[in-house]
């Protein structure tokens, strides 16, 4: 039987990027697999956002390539580039919702640009996407009328408008309280499980990393590249690199409360 599922959805090959003369990342290579939740982690200034910028086409790499489903994004012409852009959605750190448009218009715009759906069909899709992220009935609201958590959800609804195969998240928990942050994590898992979307998440949030990540890649400022790659629990337990251990393990000066969680409370996000 022929298997249509590709082995990798994104392949980053020997990527070097930076700003002006400054090289931030050098010779970085990794792949993202179907349905995978990959976290890109590392200290401040290690190049996480730079890597994300290169992967989504906002920054031009110095050298190397980013390929989506085997097609080069870096060397793509305008038409190919537009096709590739349709395969992924992005949730930005500060949401980047278009402030002059309602939520319905925000979700509708990608559909207007990339499909020939009728107005009625689009309205139905908008209602569906907003319900999917828990914002049912908020079509007429403007981004400024929403809380931080609701804005994140709305931005996710927009990112999912075209049913992309991949979603990029830039610090999805920034500015959220722990409860909203957990809700966001739950939503990310739901989307992955229901739509089979691959996800690349840039984050500092240890709790989210351990809850969600199938795999993490750890970037380092001095090395200008990846210093570790693997499952977060495994890396935290077995990595011999002190930078990786320091990042993934609790600080001895600030141990977690030792009391077990109350009965009935669970971190099982699949429920």
């Amino acid at each position, binding site marked *: 039987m022929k298997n249509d599922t590709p082995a990798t959805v994104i392949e980053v090959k020997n990527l070097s990027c930076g700003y002006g003369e400054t090289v931030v990342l050098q010779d970085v290579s990794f792949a993202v697999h179907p349905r995978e939740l990959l976290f890109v982690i590392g200290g401040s200034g290690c190049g996480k956002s730079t890597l994300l910028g290169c992967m989504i086409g*906002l920054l031009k790499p110095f050298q190397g390539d980013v390929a989506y489903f085997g097609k080069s994004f870096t060397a793509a012409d305008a038409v190919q580039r537009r096709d590739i852009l349709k395969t992924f959605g*992005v949730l*930005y750190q*500060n949401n*980047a919702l278009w402030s002059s448009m309602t939520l319905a218009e925000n979700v509708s715009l*990608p559909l207007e*640009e990339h499909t020939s759906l009728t107005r009625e069909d689009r309205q139905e899709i908008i209602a569906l996407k907003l319900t999917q992220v828990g914002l049912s009935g908020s079509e007429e609201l403007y981004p400024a009328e929403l809380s931080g958590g609701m804005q994140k959800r709305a931005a996710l609804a927009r990112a999912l408008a075209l049913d992309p195969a991949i979603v990029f998240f830039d610090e999805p928990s920034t500015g959220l309280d722990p409860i909203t942050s957990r809700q966001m994590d739950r939503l990310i898992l739901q989307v992955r499980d229901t739509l089979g979307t691959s996800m690349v998440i840039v984050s500092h949030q240890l709790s989210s990393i351990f809850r969600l990540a199938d795999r993490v890649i750890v970037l380092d400022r001095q090395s200008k590249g990846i210093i570790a790659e693997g499952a977060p629990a495994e890396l935290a337990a077995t990595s011999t690199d002190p930078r990786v251990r320091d990042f993934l393990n609790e600080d001895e000066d600030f141990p977690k409360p030792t009391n077990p969680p109350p009965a009935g409370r669970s971190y099982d996000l699949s429920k």
Partner: protein
Amino acid sequence: MTACRQLPAVNTELKAATARLEAGPAGSECLVKVGGDWRLSEPVPSWIGVLGKRTGASVRVVPDELGKWDTSLVLFLLHGRAWCAQSKKDFHADALPENLQSLLRQVAGMGAPKPIAKAPVKPSWALVGTMAKKMVSHALEIVPFVGECTLGFIGVVKKPCRFRWMDCLVEMQQCWVSSLPIVSLVSFLVGVILAFQAAIQLRQFGAAVFVADLVGLAVVREMGPMMAAVVVAGGTGAGFAAQLGNMKVDQEIDALETLGISSVDFLALPRLLAAAVMMPILALYANVLGILGGMFVSATMLDIPATAYWIETQNRVGFSDVTSGLIKSLFFGLAVGLAGCLRGMKCDRSAAGVGAATSSAVVTGITLIVLADALFAMIFNVLGI
């Protein structure tokens, strides 16, 4: 080993202060008792003043009814420790409160204080050079942006349904509403000023009625379109830059690009078209107000009836004069829209960047208006218009 000499119990200069200090011998040591409240805002004893002339094997600092304390006590103890190190004496502070000792340990590695240096002021010639370089790079940015906008307009002509007409209408409305009051005032006053200046000269020759000719021609050919354009550059053009700059800072433009939507088509073209359409209308309005300003001065100061003024204006100002002004204003509108959109979209990702983009949009807009006006003056001269 020399014991410390007895000092006055409290430094006499510090009677007003609540910080207390006593120093005296205690065996082979010099015992320094610190007490009272130590506040940066109040005078505190200096270490040199207390122990500067004394010698001894070691110095021990102990609390003596020590009240509230802040950085002033920490600095006092640091000076004491440094003085002891220099004088090769042992410094003991282990009787002090634990949190104070902890703070002293934290700052143990503090280096010598450095003077608080202000940011160097660049010499004027260096600033002129920097500005010149910036102007060149700003000027070069216009070329590819004009190219992108041209391609965008070609796309609109091919597929008009994809153009964001509603956005364009909203921008036209904004442009009209925000510019109208200022254009009214400025244009009327320009007509008044021109009439005043002309009247002073022409009255000497008994040719006061020609004020209407001068005001009519000057307003319709130059001042009306120019003043309307300058007002729109300062209001609408700056507004474009601020809007788009904020969108850049909030990553809204990035969000468009990663959805495969051209930010030029989506954001710049509706604004460019709005400015280009509204500018001739505003220029025509400015012409009327300018002529009314001249008429007002003529009627009130020169005793020229309004009808005579209007007939004289009609006789002198022809259709080609009006159309040449309106054609220019169309390009002024494009220049203002171009400057506003370009500066907004090239804005730095910071609050300061938005401010700089806004002011740069006004400067670029007015510069382009003047350049376009000079170009049209030459073209109309060649064409004999």
